[in-house]
């Protein structure tokens, strides 16, 4: 299984999503650093790998892919016999996992990423956090976490009683938010809080920090 390459940035949440999946599967890979602050992701040769100019891009031998959640699903299926199981294939499980991936992608991530941008990345670039945006987005995140709280009261992980990609996809954004005042939204919900402690302490999650 030689020849897995990840083209990305070690601090990028989307890149981390792929790295965590590779670590869950104990796969060897080469990491190619794309310097975002130099705009390397918007120029050749990276732009040939992803014409949308976003990290990460991925290669497994001759096979090329981008979009982090497509890459993680490829890893989960192609390497299903290696490391930890990240998907389950019964038809009811397909439903739960597909829905869980969409919810993270459309409800959790847009809000979570805005909060990471305002509170973590803007300061790094010498810009000021907009507190109004933080307030608005925290209100939206609270609603999403209420749904997660309810779900985690019925099930140990979001899609089933086992850790799956649905949980994995949330880890990079959660890791950043735990270092900001937004942490309180996770702490004040007991099931969410326990789940966060569980998934962020996985060795794969620790490796990307």
């Amino acid at each position, binding site marked *: 299984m030689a020849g897995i390459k990840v083209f990305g940035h070690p601090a990028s949440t989307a890149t981390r999503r792929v790295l965590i999946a590779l670590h869950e599967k104990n796969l060897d890979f080469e990491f190619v650093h794309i310097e975002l602050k130099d705009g390397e992701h918007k120029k050749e040769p990276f732009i040939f790998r992803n014409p949308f100019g976003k990290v990460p891009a991925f290669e497994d031998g001759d096979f090329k892919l981008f979009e982090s959640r497509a890459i993680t699903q490829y890893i989960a299926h192609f390497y299903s016999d290696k490391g930890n199981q990240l998907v389950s294939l019964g038809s009811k499980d397909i439903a739960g996992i597909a829905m869980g991936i*969409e919810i993270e992608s459309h409800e959790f991530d847009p809000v979570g990423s805005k909060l990471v941008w305002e509170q973590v990345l803007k300061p790094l670039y010498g810009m000021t956090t907009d507190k109004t945006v933080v307030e608005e987005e925290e209100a939206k995140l609270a609603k999403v976490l209420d749904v997660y709280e309810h779900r985690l009261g019925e099930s140990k992980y979001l899609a089933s009683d086992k850790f799956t990609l649905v949980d994995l996809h949330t880890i990079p954004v959660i890791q950043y938010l735990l270092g900001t005042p937004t942490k309180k939204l996770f702490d004040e919900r007991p099931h969410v809080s326990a789940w966060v402690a569980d998934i962020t302490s996985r060795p794969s999650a620790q490796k990307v920090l």
Partner: protein
Amino acid sequence: MQKLNKCIYIVYMDCLQMVFKLFPNWKREAEVKKLGYKVHGDPFSTNTRRVLAVLHEKRLSYEPITVKLQTGEHKTEPFLSLNPFGQVPVFEDGSVKLYESRAITQYIAYVHSSRGTQLLNLRSHETMATLTMWMEIEAHQFDPPASKLTWEQVIKPIYGLETDQTIVKENEAILEKVLNIYEKRLEESRFLACNSFTLVDLHHLPNIQYLLGTPTKKLFEKRSKVRKWVDEITSREAWKMACDQEKSWFNKPRN
């Protein structure tokens, strides 16, 4: 005795087929009862139509249940116990309740992969991964500007609200960049994910259909491969049925 029972059964099935030919609604209702599929939504909602398109590609029967968006029915109970995010559609398959239109379409496409139009590319992990990648592209790169343009130009006027031309201009600029990439892709491939129509192309249909009735249409028309692709996918029978309220949303309103 067994032979007689078999004969009676055959005659019964023949009569049933005859009845269903004369009364297609009865056949549909029988199938609906058997499959037990329900779609809670609105026949004009882009997300609902995404699901209807797959059901028609697969020739599956379902019970449509109207959720009155104009009165905010989707933001209150009891709808919220179907989808706590307060969005249509919601799909019921027996005890399985699903929301997020792209999860529903994938579920139906997998469960019924041997029936109707093949909407997935299951030949290998690589072909499926490429399909998944293009589904992500539709969801994260195409849909944000496209749905904003649909909202501004199509839906706001229905509610008596004014189109914000600045937002239209901004999002058309974003959509142009996406369509440039699509134009290149469609030079190499007949459809986006591969050479046959898949869920990827289907997922684009609801927004494209609405945008073809707005000035944004020109963005699709001025790119020859994109224009050809749009013509091909919007003229599919299943899609036309999904947009035809009489054919796709044929129920009485929920009590």
